[in-house]
């Protein structure tokens, strides 16, 4: 765990939000809404909690991170750039012909990326395998999986939840970016998830609910607790705002995915600066 202040983390989160906007422009379009809702969690993980080293991306004792909501690559890959795993210049070719960076991350092409994702419901099973692998090999690393809330409609997550508890994987932390929207609308209208925390509790997980997953103090407090918890896997259900930090995107289902014109970019940058 890195010794870094909340103020510094907040500043990093602003940098990431700006880079998400830039990358969305370079890419032509992107899943800005779900990337912005995850930004504070990603920054907390990569700049404080995850034991990773950009100079040794394949170091076998590193903590593992799986972006199960792979469509947030437009937030994740810029985060890896800020951390120093990849060159920021490369982001200018995001989505372009033969770019290593596309809408969903490819672990064989993105330095520092531990799992190729994109198809929802795949990250948690892989995370269970990584955590189990640590136990088998008596390694101390932790595995963190970031899921979308809409993604939790996928049945494979519940298979993985069952097995994580069965194997008592206290080295596994799931974080759900509960921004309450999916492509076709609010999660509770499309396919209701509630009672959501109770589902994880019923599956034997240690549940930490964060009422504001875009508040860095609260995100860090939850991660502090999760990092220390023993005996069962932990899930942090972080209530976030889709499109957080950009006024015209916040809680707007249309900003699940889209392109930005120059005036929108200007507005977005101003909003981020003032946040």
């Amino acid at each position, binding site marked *: 765990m890195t010794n870094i202040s909340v103020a510094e983390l907040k500043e990093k989160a602003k940098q990431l939000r700006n880079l998400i906007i830039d990358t969305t422009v370079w890419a032509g379009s992107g899943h800005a809404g779900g990337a912005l809702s995850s930004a504070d969690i990603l920054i907390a993980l990569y700049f404080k909690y995850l034991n990773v080293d950009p100079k040794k991306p394949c170091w076998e004792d590193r903590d593992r991170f799986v972006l199960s909501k792979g469509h947030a690559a437009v937030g994740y890959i810029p985060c890896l750039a800020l951390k120093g795993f990849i060159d920021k210049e490369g982001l200018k070719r995001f989505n372009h012909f033969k770019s290593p960076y596309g809408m969903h991350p490819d672990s064989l092409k993105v330095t520092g990326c531990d799992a190729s994702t994109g198809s929802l419901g795949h990250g948690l099973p892989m995370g*269970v395998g990584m955590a189990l*692998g640590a136990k088998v090999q008596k390694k101390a690393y932790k595995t963190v999986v970031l899921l979308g809330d809409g993604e939790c409609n996928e*049945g494979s997550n519940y298979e993985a939840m069952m097995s994580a508890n069965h194997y008592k994987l206290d080295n596994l932390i799931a974080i759900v970016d509960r921004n309450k929207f999916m492509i076709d609308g609010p999660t509770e209208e499309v396919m209701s998830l509630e009672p959501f925390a109770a589902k994880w509790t019923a599956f034997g997980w240690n549940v930490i609910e964060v009422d504001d997953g875009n508040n860095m103090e609260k995100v860090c407090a939850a991660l502090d607790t999760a990092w220390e918890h023993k005996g069962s896997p932990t899930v942090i259900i972080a209530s976030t705002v889709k499109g957080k930090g950009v006024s015209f995107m916040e809680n707007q289902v249309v900003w699940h995915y889209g392109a930005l014109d120059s005036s929108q970019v200007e507005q977005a940058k101003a909003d981020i600066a003032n946040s």
Partner: protein
Amino acid sequence: MAEKKSVTGTTWNCYDANTMSAKEIYGRVLRQLAEDNPKIVGVTADLEKSTNIGIFGKAFPDRMFNVGIAEQNLFGVAAGLAKSGLIPFASTFAVFASMRAAEQVRSDICYQKLPVKIIATHAGISFGQAGTTHHCTEDLAIMRSFANMTVIVPADGAETGRAVEACLDIDGPVYIRVGRGFEPPYHKDQDFEFTIGKGELVREGSDATIITCGIGVLQSAVASDELKRMDGLSVRVINMHTIKPIDKEIILDAVKSTRRIITLEEHNVIGGLGDAVASVIAESGKGCAFTKLGLQDEYSLVGYPEDLYSHYKMDTSGIVDSVREIMGREFEADEDWADEV
């Protein structure tokens, strides 16, 4: 060849191959390999006993994970275990590995080129009485369409042992397909060449060639012997144990030498061995008479496997009939092989 250690407590030779199913030998070979390789772990979905991966699991309980009846999780977990530096052997029925969890196998394992070794049992129609939900006549088509995947169909238990051992040398995923029970073996001992990607010449022949895999190898060898005795025909038999990458050389030599080719597989004739062979022939520009034996794009019947093999012309007499049919077919042989494309 390196000296083989016993996998049975007695010997691993003729005796074993004649009395043990392919999956039993798989479990024993895996147990043996795991003694020297601490990276090997096992995963299954409530089929520890049925797939015989439990033989390994009993010896190494700390390295065996039964995720319950949850095949999507099975292959996702296998991918994660491989990501952590281990070599997972994942076993379930072929139908679940190739279809219930197809996307996990493709996106989690093959796309990331992970060294997950899938040993799929009860393939084809070997679980005859169980019916179509438990048969699997599509897996070769599915698995060979996944980039990075190596696809192997051993002829019998002895060859399964060799394949399980050899798959550790492949830097990536491997799909090994075996049957359910005791399918009589073709190989009578361990003394045969086995190289992934190289077909095995089982019978020499100049009139026609049967290219087959799995249970078809023994049946075709016997059919070749019968045809020689009864009809004076010289029928070549190739054990194409590796469906992908396929041995083009042995196929083209058979086309050149015999100009009549029959493929036989315990699979739908769409997308499996027959189509893999057909592609090689079509791309070569050579002509030949060609027949694909297997399930003719239909769902399988219920019955004891031997009755089903007979019904689908996968047994000796069905093969004999098919060879006679293809020998009677008009085919204009072009002697000027060198002039062709």
